[in-house]
């Protein structure tokens, strides 16, 4: 652990320097500690050989009281004495800072107890007096206490450099990064609004949360550059960052799972979450834990993403590219590239979402078109030559020969037309209404054929909805493709259940015309099939066949759409 932390510290300092944090030209990390408080401990000449030398991030000084740390140093060649030179201290402490015994500045005020201490900032910067800017060896001494955060001590380092540069350290990167922050914020709010106002899809909520988490992470990571907070809040900040990282580690793979409708093994989920918790609660430093969490999350998401591509999910390739973009940041320059990696993920996911939205829209339009076409087909039944022109021709004869009955005929015609108009724009209608429609048609044909056509229901008594005019079309077919001797004819609609389907069996009581005419009416069946597909998507069946001399039509519909009335 110790060596790893030292390695981490070194690499972090490299990052600081290589990330363009050029202000810190020289750093002191190893210092000597002594508990207690004596005025002459500031003096250059004081012998501190018995003091304990420590690296930062090692075990905190036990017992909170006043402590001193000291170190000897020479300014290196990167310090230019003709420029205002500053000394920065990043540590969890309130302190007085001495160079060569001279008090250069104070960060808060150290005290022997919590009441006596005035809390200082986590990061502070002081101007070094010109008189101290020489190439001789100097001694830096810090008198400090940290009663507000007794169990958590961090000493990041003492830094020298150009005062102006140090004052604006990290501000440029921070402002650039906040462009990305704005991006995440806006995208996150937008999709959150979509979730609450438009449609509550879980994947939308996850995506919005992911964006807003990225946003929050940027804010808390970079806040240290523009808001110098009191040192106790450093722990708070680190804990918040840890929670956010944990949250992101949860959200990222979850989003990929939910968005692409992947089935998942509950056991794997539990193992994953357990891993995350284990990492979070372990002894790892905050930064190591973060890297570990992100790595685990990224790898898991990568695996899920590859699976989605394998299963040919729409938009999965773009999402895969997105997650691949995060890996360079984990492997190389962590901090800055992490956020550009996040941007890549969101960017590719956005493209993927837009494509998805377009596909959804086209499908919706197609469905509306189909709906309109079917509605038209139904309405056209009313004016189809076979129906309308023949009815009118028949009516002519009624009017001439039997005016009183012709009025009845007109009423029956109007009734069937009225019913068709009522049901035309519905996707499904009550079964009762459909039966009414069939009976109306049979009544019409009774007038036309000078016979009596009737419909009798046998079998199960059902309640439920079916697509409009499908039974009506079967009755129409039966009448047009068969010969009926003059007299009474009863159409039989038999309802039974077969496995998990309801079967509607319509028997036409006429005699099937010779095979010349036996081919089922193309348009009629096409209409029935379209309606069935619209409502039951592949879970239906339509059969027509001859049994003895009669024409049978059978329609199968999933049983779950109906209630069977118990006798």
């Amino acid at each position, binding site marked *: 652990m110790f060596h790893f932390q030292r390695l981490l510290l070194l690499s972090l300092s490299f990052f600081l320097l290589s990330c363009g944090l050029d202000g810190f030209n020289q750093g002191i990390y190893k210092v000597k500690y002594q508990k207690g408080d004596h005025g002459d401990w500031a003096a250059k000449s004081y012998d501190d050989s018995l003091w304990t030398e420590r690296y930062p991030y090692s075990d905190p000084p036990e017992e909170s009281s006043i402590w001193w740390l000291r170190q000897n140093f020479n300014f290196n060649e990167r310090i230019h004495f003709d420029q205002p030179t500053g000394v920065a201290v990043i540590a969890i402490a309130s302190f007085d800072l001495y160079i060569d015994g001279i008090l250069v500045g104070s960060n808060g005020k150290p005290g022997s107890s919590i009441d006596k201490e005035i809390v200082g900032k986590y990061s502070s910067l002081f101007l070094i007096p010109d008189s101290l800017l020489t190439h001789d060896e100097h001694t830096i001494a810090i008198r400090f206490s940290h009663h507000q955060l007794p169990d958590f001590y961090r000493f990041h380092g003492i830094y020298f450099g150009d005062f102006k540069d140090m004052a604006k350290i990290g501000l440029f990167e921070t402002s650039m990064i906040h462009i990305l922050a704005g991006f995440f914020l806006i995208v996150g709010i937008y999709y959150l609004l979509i979730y609450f106002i438009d449609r509550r899809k879980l994947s939308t909520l996850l995506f919005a949360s992911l964006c807003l988490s990225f946003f929050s992470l940027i804010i808390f990571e970079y806040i240290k550059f523009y808001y110098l907070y009191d040192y106790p809040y450093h722990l708070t900040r680190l804990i918040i960052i840890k929670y956010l990282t944990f949250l992101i580690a949860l959200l990222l793979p979850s989003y990929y799972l939910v968005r692409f409708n992947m089935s998942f093994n509950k056991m794997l989920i539990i193992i994953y979450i357990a891993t995350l918790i284990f990492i979070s609660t372990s002894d790892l430093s905050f930064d190591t834990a973060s890297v570990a969490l992100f790595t685990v999350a990224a790898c898991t998401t990568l695996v899920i993403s590859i699976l989605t591509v394998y299963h040919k999910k729409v938009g999965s390739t773009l999402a895969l590219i997105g997650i691949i973009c995060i890996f360079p940041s984990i492997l190389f320059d962590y901090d800055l590239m992490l956020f550009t990696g996040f941007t890549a993920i969101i960017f590719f996911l956005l493209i993927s979402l837009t494509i998805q939205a377009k596909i959804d829209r086209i499908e919706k339009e197609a469905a509306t078109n189909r709906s309109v076409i079917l509605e038209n087909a139904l309405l056209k039944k009313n004016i189809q030559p076979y129906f309308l022109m*023949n009815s009118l021709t028949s*009516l002519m004869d009624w009017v001439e020969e039997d005016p009183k009955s012709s009025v009845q005929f007109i009423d029956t015609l109007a009734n069937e037309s009225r019913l068709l108009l009522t049901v035309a724009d519905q996707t499904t209608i009550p079964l009762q209404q459909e039966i009414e429609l069939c009976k109306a048609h049979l009544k019409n044909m009774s007038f036309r054929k000078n016979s009596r056509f009737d419909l009798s229901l046998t079998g199960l008594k059902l309640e439920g909805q079916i697509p409009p005019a499908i039974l009506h079309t079967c009755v129409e077919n039966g009448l047009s493709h068969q010969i009926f001797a003059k007299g009474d004819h009863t159409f039989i609609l038999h309802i039974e259940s077969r496995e998990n389907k309801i079967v509607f069996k319509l028997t036409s009581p006429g005699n099937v015309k010779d095979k010349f005419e036996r081919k089922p009416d193309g348009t009629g069946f096409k209409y029935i099939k379209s309606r069935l597909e619209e409502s039951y998507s592949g879970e239906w069946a339509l059969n027509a066949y001859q049994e003895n001399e009669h024409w049978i039509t059978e329609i199968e519909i999933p049983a779950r759409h109906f209630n069977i009335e118990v006798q």
Partner: protein
Amino acid sequence: MNILIVEDEERIARRTERYLIEILSDRKIHIHIEEEINKAMRFLENNTIDLLFLDLNLHGENGFQIIQSLVSESFQTIIISAYSEKAIEAFEYGVLDFIAKPFLKERLEKAIDRYKNTELKSENSTRYLSIKSNSILELIEVNKIIFIKGAGHYSELHLENGKVELHSKNLEKLYILLPDQFKRVHKSYIANIKMVDRIRTEVGSKYSIQFKNTEEIPIGRSYYKGLKKELIK
């Protein structure tokens, strides 16, 4: 006069029958009604008719096949149908008339006029004549006919390619169906004017038509003047 009505709705059939009796009150007619095409075909095997009224559902494909078969027979065919948009196509096959449902008595009268009046040429053009040889239907493009020679109850169709086909309708019946380019030039001949090369005059005021393929037919004296006027036009 024998008439066959093929109509599956009894009321409509009875109405047509009623009207026909009124319209054709000047002669003795016998009307038979069948409600289905196959039964009608069987009736036709054993009976001869002069005029057929056929209710046809032209929405399917069978309709036109049936028409082609029927117009090859010796009787004239009138189609009655609810599907009026198919009328033009029906006329191309040589039906005498196409009546759209619903229809008034006057419309039926007009169709009967066409039957009775051998001079009234159809406004619509017949494009094909169908002939039946050994139960095989053949469609003959009317433009390929050079002339038609009457042969009793039948007609000989003399074609461009030299072939001669026999049609069950006599000359008068065919004449009403054919487009304007076909003229009666002789008691026994109808000529396709478009195929005429020249008119030849012979000694004794005998006239003949020579066609582009060098075939010749005579021109009847009473037909000559009218024909000349037509040719000058």
